[in-house]
């Protein structure tokens, strides 16, 4: 975590210096700063931090849900990022009803009343939040989309991962492990969620390349451990042999594993899922889960905060900033475990 933040700070300083040179790009995506967690260190040069001024900056970070570790981690990172910048105050909020777009819009309105300078939001619904973006635009407040894009409106920038690519990578890893032959079941998330749809599309694209792999079934378990367990119980009842499972998020897989264990069938399948947390890391170490992906939501949040800060100081920010995804398997899980603790 610290390593990334210092990296990002270097990026900020370098961006501040680069404004000296005429870039002239119109925020096209070729500018996408792919901040993979490897060495993209740009020479910091003379950091012109004094140019930041002494204006008080207020930001608000709105997560989709306060109930998932992923989003609370993002909130933590946003706060840490704001703490590193001078005179930046940030408030992190989440709707009471998880994934409620209407409540997110309400929070945006409240924040505008309060006079924030920037709204950073992971949109619960990419279409509904367009209204929130419009309200920000009318009030002259910046809107930064973290993790989830918004379909309309003037968004300053978007930080996140390419979900379709994620889906593709994960499914490909599973198919390879199964040597191109087998039956798999898929666990989806709440329908209508752009993230889920993109990942699913990626899954299907990869699977299409392996004619020996059949998708037995694909149903939503709403990102919930219990529901994942119940869905797996159904799958186990319906299908006498399941070779692998693919899931868009980790909670469902962890629940599914319990169901498989209870039925004595967890040895027969290879599980691939997404997102990192201590429980899934342990599962990888134990061999229960084959692979997961790390999208490091914290990076997305921090980058969003930094981008807002830069923009408020007159620096151009690219319209889309892709962050990389790392595949975590038994080979590199130890690095992650030490990172997570």
């Amino acid at each position, binding site marked *: 975590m610290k390593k990334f933040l210092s990296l990002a700070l270097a990026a900020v300083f370098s961006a501040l210096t680069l404004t000296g040179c005429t870039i002239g790009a119109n925020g096209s995506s070729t500018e996408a700063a792919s901040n993979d967690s490897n060495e993209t260190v740009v020479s910091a040069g003379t950091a012109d931090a004094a140019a930041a001024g002494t204006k008080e900056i207020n930001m608000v970070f709105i997560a989709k849900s*306060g109930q998932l570790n992923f989003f609370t981690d993002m909130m933590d990172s946003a706060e840490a990022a704001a703490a590193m910048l001078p005179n930046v105050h940030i*408030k*992190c*909020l*989440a*709707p*009471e*009803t998880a*994934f*409620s*777009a*209407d409540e997110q*819009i*309400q*929070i945006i*309105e*409240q924040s505008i*009343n*309060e*006079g924030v300078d920037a709204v950073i939001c992971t949109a619960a*619904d*990419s*279409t*509904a*939040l*367009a*209204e929130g973006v419009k309200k920000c635009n009318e*009030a*002259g407040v910046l809107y930064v989309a973290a993790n989830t894009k918004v379909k309309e409106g003037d968004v300053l920038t978007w930080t996140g991962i390419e979900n379709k690519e994620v889906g593709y990578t994960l499914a490909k890893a599973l198919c390879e492990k199964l040597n191109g032959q087998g039956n798999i079941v898929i666990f989806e998330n*709440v*329908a*209508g969620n752009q993230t889920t749809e993109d990942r699913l599309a990626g899954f299907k694209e990869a699977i299409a390349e392996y004619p020996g792999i059949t998708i037995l079934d694909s149903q*939503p378990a709403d990102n919930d451990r219990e529901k994942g367990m119940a869905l797996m119980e159904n799958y186990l009842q319906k299908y006498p042999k399941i070779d692998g499972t693919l899931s868009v998020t980790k909670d469902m897989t962890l629940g599914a594993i319990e169901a498989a264990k209870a039925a004595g069938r967890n040895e027969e399948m290879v599980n691939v899922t997404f997102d990192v947390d201590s429980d899934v890391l342990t599962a990888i170490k134990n061999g229960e889960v084959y692979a997961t992906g790390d999208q490091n939501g914290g990076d997305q949040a921090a980058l969003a905060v930094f981008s807002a800060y830069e923009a408020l100081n007159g620096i151009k920010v690219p319209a889309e900033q892709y962050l990389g995804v790392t595949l975590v398997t038994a080979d590199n899980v130890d690095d992650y475990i030490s990172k997570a603790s």
Partner: protein
Amino acid sequence: MNSRNKSFRFSSLPSSTYIFVILLVLFSITVPNFFTPANFSTILEQAGVLVLISIGASFPIMTGGIDLAAGSVISLCGICMGVFLHNGIPDYIAVIGGVLVGTLFGFCNGYLVHKIKVPPFITTFGTMGIAESLANFFSDSRTIYWKENTNVHLIRALKTDLLEIWFGNGNSKLFSISGIVLFIFLVVAASIFIFNKTSWKENIYAIGHNIESARLCGIKVLKFSIGAYAISGCMSGIAAILILVRSNCATPIMGSGMEFQAIVAATIGGNVAEGGKGSIPGSIIGAFAIFIIRNAVNYLGLNSFVSMIITGITLLLGMVINELIAAQDLRKGGVRV
């Protein structure tokens, strides 16, 4: 004895007023930016949905029943309206269609409860799942949106600001009333008027007190009791319009969980589970009371779970206050009309 006791009774105001005032004062003192006209105009607009379904929830409760399906019916109506708009149907018709769907659904609820005699908890528990399924089915579990074309005059009209007061350099709105607020106000006023001025009030109270004696008194029990559920469904439909307008799309989980908040608001407002008494303004004030909790917690930047705790405590406190007021009523004697 002709001299009536003219002293002020707590029960002359709806019981939720006291809770509301307590919370208002508490938050105005402790939360910066709370007691500002901008915040109040925001609250007026945002709380509309909750206010409407709290009114809707009061009716079944007053007849001694309950409507657990209210939230899912919002989703269903919203999806229906969304589907209509998506297919190019003019917005007036789409909106009326959605509200009709809600009313019809409520009617079915009432029919099951009062004609087939399935207990209201079970009926609305079952229909909650049914409505949710239908919403998912009609929308294919996706968000529905429609193009910004000429068919959405009504929606655009609702979103415009009717009254704005600008402050200072004219960049920040001080107070504004949008079309939505006017709309909410009209619906609320109509509900209160219809309830108080027509025979609804007495009849519903009578039914809530004792349905058998009401029937023996010649009251058209079926009409009013089924009507109560139909009204609840209708309100869900109208609430769906508001959500639709504000988010410019329809999702199949639009209304999930709202029935509970409505029931809490109605209960704080004096609509007790046994039925037979209660008031619409009470529910409205109860709805605002609950809403400002969330509003204040967000301003403080606290975890939304803090708002859950405060809401739970408020509910208990509200009940205690209800009880104290009723006890005071009993002590002072006399008949309250």
